[in-house]
């Protein structure tokens, strides 16, 4: 009855400040290059999904990973621009994120 089984298992909630890991390894990496190492804020928690970095090799995608919409300040990503007030939203899985205090 309770929704607990479907609670996202990830470390973060909306509003948390996060830093994207700067990882580079062989395989299917779901976090685009331009956002690695950047700092943003959790905009929304989508829920838990099969891990595409595992599915990409025909494996089972388990354990599921929490997927977030993460918001970044446009100038933090692209430098000086006429879109300084814009947010850049990127979907990023939990294992790519670490907390920023």
């Amino acid at each position, binding site marked *: 009855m309770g929704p607990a089984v479907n609670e996202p298992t990830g470390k973060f909630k909306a509003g948390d400040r996060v830093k994207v890991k700067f990882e580079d390894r062989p395989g299917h*990496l779901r976090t685009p290059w331009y956002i690695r190492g950047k700092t943003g804020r959790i905009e929304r928690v989508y829920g838990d999904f099969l891990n595409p970095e595992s599915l990409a090799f025909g494996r089972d995608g388990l354990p599921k990973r929490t997927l977030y919409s993460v918001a970044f300040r446009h100038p933090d990503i692209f430098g000086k621009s006429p879109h300084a007030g814009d947010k850049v939203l990127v979907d990023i899985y939990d294992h790519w994120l670490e907390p920023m205090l």
Partner: protein
Amino acid sequence: MPRGHHDVGGLPGAGPIDQSQHELSDWEILADAINQALGAKGVKRTDEMRRAREEMDSAAYRDMSYYERWIASIEAILIEKKILDKQQIDRKLAEFDTKWGRP
């Protein structure tokens, strides 16, 4: 690891996005249908297709059109899963060449 040929978001010099409409060729529609059918049958997943495109030779990847990349990645995954082998595919292509001539 160099940045992958598929991962070009945010690179300068990309120019404006081509938003013009274009008609799909019959073979492109067929490519889409085969892709959908293989997915529905559980033969392959979208993430595998993406990984196959990422593993392609970079020069070949850049030379190919969108659906050419799809076909190449379907071929790679079917060979990887031992559903077809390269010789079978090449033999069939040679048959088509004889029947219809080279495109």
